[in-house]
């Protein structure tokens, strides 16, 4: 649903249909840098996509296509599981 302008627009108890929630952008929670991709090394194993706890790995069909920084919380699991160093943690201002 779109952002509400008045409290009275809130559905009763905030109960809502699937996918209808106002999504808070949680990327701002990162405190220790962000994962950065090196696509030339990627073998498209999609381990990062499987492990990401925030569904922040973006695919193009079944091909790795990058990271959604609006929702990546910077946990670095993707960097940890990547077998080919196609991901690394970098400072926020260096990306």
């Amino acid at each position: 649903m779109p952002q509400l302008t008045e409290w009275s627009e809130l559905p009763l108890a905030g109960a809502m249909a699937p996918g209808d929630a106002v999504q808070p952008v949680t990327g701002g929670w990162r405190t220790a840098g962000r994962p950065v991709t090196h696509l030339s090394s990627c073998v498209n194993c999609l381990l990062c996509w499987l492990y990401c706890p925030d569904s922040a790995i973006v695919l193009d069909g079944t091909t790795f296509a990058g990271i959604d920084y609006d929702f990546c919380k910077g946990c670095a699991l993707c960097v940890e599981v990547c077998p080919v160093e196609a991901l690394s943690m970098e400072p926020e201002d260096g990306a």
Partner: protein
Amino acid sequence: MSTVESRLLTGGEAVAHALCQIQPDVVPVYPITPQTPIIQTFSSLVADGAAHTEIVNVESEHSAMSAAIGAALAGARTATATSSQGLALMAEVVYIAASMRAPLTMAVGNRALSGPINIHCDHSDSMLVRDSGVVQLFAENAQEAYDLMVMAPRIAEHPAVSLPVLVCQDGFTITHAAEPVCMLEDAEVRAFVGEYRPALRSLLATESPASHGPFAMPDYYFEFRRAQAAALEAAAEVIAGVADDFASLAGRANHGVEPYRLDGAETVLIALGSTAGTVKDVIDELREDGERTGLLKIRSFRPFPAQAVRELAGGARHVVVLDRADSPGGAPPLAADVAFALADCDATLRSHVYGLGGRDLHPEAIRQIFHGVAPRYVGVRGEPCPV
């Protein structure tokens, strides 16, 4: 009106019979003194086939309220009951039930909170969930406990309210004391409460699934709380309407406040629960002596009937508030609400705390309270009223 003859029932039994007539689909409950007679009596009635209710013997009051939320939101008319430490253990989930707008009902046998551990009446347990966003109605006697329990589902399930409704009765003084109680016929109660039609779509409606109890950060939490405040405000009007309908059916009025001999009253006492009955007797005696005293009994503590308090007590010379709960270091809860309601009135305000842990409040002490000579803590050792 076709009430059957009165029966000799304790307040606990009266509420159990009301529940049996309402026939909730689910009652998750855990026993605790002095609530136990409610669920004990109700369980016997269900075992005898008088109601189709599924009683869930949960392992704690925290679980009782958790199960009650699930049942109420799944589409089952749901009730539970508790007291004191049970309500304290449940408190976390009471807030969630209110936020999830679960339209369930709960019978409360008011009992002092530990410590020290005690089993007798005061209102500290109710006050612990004062700000949770639930409706709280206080009965003066077993008859009112029965009446308010029959009214409760209609209030809880009204689409503008959709909140838990607590029907509070003083532990032992009402829960365990037998009085004549006029019950309605089973069919009358069933017709009065009607079918369960919750305003929220059912958790089990798989054709239109919904998320309940969402996460709300600083960007939306405040809006949830504001909506709850509006539901409590709406509840005041709903309670009035349900009380009107109940009065037409039963011939007994149970509105948010009950004025007693307020005509020309110079001193108005405000109280909750069974003490109101003793106060009425004292007022009758004082009036015979020409003392212009009156009582404003609060049935609906939440929502608090601030406007009625202002209209009915604001013109008195003195307003005296009796709290059966303390707020150490601050204003007792009922006194705080009355003070807020009367902020623009000329009446002087006095506040007394009485009856903690089941200490009796005798008519003589109430006379002294009216006469302005009682200490702030009435009936405690070491602070006697001057004779």
